[in-house]
């Protein structure tokens, strides 16, 4: 099975036309001693056999558990129309819209996505997508360094520890100082996350002002679903807003593909990484869309490009756009509101002294338990519940702290069963 159309007869005729005697003849430029011979791979499989084999592997992953895992990646409801539309071959099997006239579907979708993201965040420009939330934090950081010519980065202590780790890894050879704190003086940017990794909600309007007085940029990492309810990065005065877009109709997928969202102010658009679509007209005056400001990108500016990004997550951006269209303003408000209200309900069902942070939270909160969080999640598993993320496992808290996420999908019954179970396993 190799999905090859040419028959042996055709291959022979084609070889004759080329002037080669055999298929091997086409590879004589590869020195004999480096040809590998037949690779040591398992034998080939039919479509039926591979389906069975992979279904077996998939079954070894338990997705039937009732899960309260979040930590930046959330189990929201995904409408069926998204899968139906993104599996259309004209979207799925197209590539980067280099020939605009035969890629108007892609380009208009990107333009609509950019518009939806800007309206969601109250920012002025959004790019066509980055890899994920963590690499978007990295891109925002190098963007801030380019704009300010400064090399010190301040990261809030409640930034997702995975993002922090990604930032440190990506920049380790660039000589930047990545520090913990929110002091804008002398910094290229201050990076804060709202809601924070611990689920707490803040208003960073004052910090934005302090950043601007100090000549630093404010980077706000947001949760896109939360903006159905919470104050936006644009309202706070953020210079760059970035997010993990997974919550917008993208399945959890064991870590990817996800969606890096990045939006900024007009004055910084030329320092922004990634593709950008723009509206224009054709020779008849008909509206159409093209990629623009490509001179920022690697295929033109090479080592001086704003980023090395080429392949992005366009299909995931399309998912996010369709999600936002299906939900509409009312739907997104309701989803956000339910995440908030159900989280509050669960908090009230638990002993008040377990709640670690005395702050408003959105769809997630931390409990500090009398026993280790590892023990608790082990015991909860026996009841069919993934109780949350022990914070110390991602290097972000005490061994007794557990991060619990609640989305709109959780029912009152599940929340009550969770609270009762948690009390029981802690006391047993």
């Amino acid at each position, binding site marked *: 099975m190799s999905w090859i159309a040419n028959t042996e007869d055709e291959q022979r005729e084609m070889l004759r036309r080329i002037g080669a005697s055999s298929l091997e003849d086409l590879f004589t430029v590869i020195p004999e001693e480096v040809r590998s011979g037949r690779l040591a791979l398992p034998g080939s499989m039919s479509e039926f056999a591979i389906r069975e084999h992979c279904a077996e592997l998939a079954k070894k992953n338990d997705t039937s558990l009732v899960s309260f895992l979040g930590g930046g990646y959330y189990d929201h409801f995904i409408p069926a129309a998204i899968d139906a539309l993104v599996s259309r071959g004209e979207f799925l099997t197209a590539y980067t819209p280099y020939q605009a006239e035969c890629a108007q579907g892609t380009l208009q979708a990107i333009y609509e996505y950019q518009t939806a993201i800007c309206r969601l965040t109250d920012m002025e420009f959004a790019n066509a997508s980055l890899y994920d939330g963590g690499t978007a934090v990295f891109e925002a950081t190098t963007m801030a360094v380019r704009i300010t010519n400064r090399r010190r980065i301040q990261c809030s202590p409640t930034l997702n520890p995975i993002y922090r780790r990604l930032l440190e890894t990506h920049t380790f050879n660039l000589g930047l100082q990545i520090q913990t704190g929110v002091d804008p003086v002398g910094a290229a940017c201050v990076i804060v996350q709202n809601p924070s990794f611990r689920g707490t909600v803040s208003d960073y309007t004052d910090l934005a002002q302090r950043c601007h007085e100090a000549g630093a940029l404010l980077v706000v990492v947001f949760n896109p679903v939360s903006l159905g309810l919470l104050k936006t990065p644009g309202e706070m005065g953020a210079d760059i807003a970035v997010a993990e877009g997974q919550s917008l109709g993208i399945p959890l997928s064991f870590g990817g593909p996800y969606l890096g969202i990045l939006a900024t102010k007009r004055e910084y658009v*030329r320092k922004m990484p990634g593709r950008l679509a723009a509206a224009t007209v054709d020779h008849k005056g008909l509206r159409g869309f093209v990629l*623009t*400001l*490509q*001179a*920022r990108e690697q295929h*033109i*500016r090479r080592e*001086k490009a704003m980023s090395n990004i080429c392949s992005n997550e366009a299909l995931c951006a399309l998912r996010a756009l369709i999600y936002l269209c299906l939900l509409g303003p009312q739907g997104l408000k309701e989803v956000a509101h339910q995440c908030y209200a159900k989280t509050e309900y669960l908090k009230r069902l638990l002993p008040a002294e377990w709640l670690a942070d005395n702050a408003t939270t959105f769809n997630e909160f931390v409990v500090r338990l009398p026993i280790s969080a590892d023990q608790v999640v082990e015991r909860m598993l026996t009841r069919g519940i993934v109780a949350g993320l022990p914070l110390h496992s991602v290097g972000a808290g005490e061994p007794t702290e557990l991060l619990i996420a609640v989305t709109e999908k959780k029912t009152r019954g599940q929340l009550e069963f969770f609270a009762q179970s948690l009390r029981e396993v802690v006391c047993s």
Partner: protein
Amino acid sequence: MFPDDLYYTEDHEWIRDEGSEYVVGITSYAVEQLGDITYVELPELGADVIRGETVATVESVKAASDVYSPVGGHICEVNDFLESRPELVNEDPYGEGWFFKLDSVRVSELNKLMKADAYEAYIKSLEK
């Protein structure tokens, strides 16, 4: 083909002596290579620059190019009009499409630049 009163660089900048100041822009050859100019990033006013330093960037739809200072000096004026009307560079590269002005120029460095006939010969050699 190229104005006689200018000095030229191999990177296709021109510079004109206007007495107390020197005006800098890019040549019609550079403009032709770039196509329609869509954006010009101008140097910082008041900066001291050395010969060959990157001081500006010019972009078209399919290309981006750095602009280098032809000689050392002090940037005493920039052509702000280019920010909103980059097409001036296409329309009038030696006039309204100028980029910036220098004073306190290292005059001796002008000797290292080409006159019009030498620049024309240089362009011919590139096109071969």
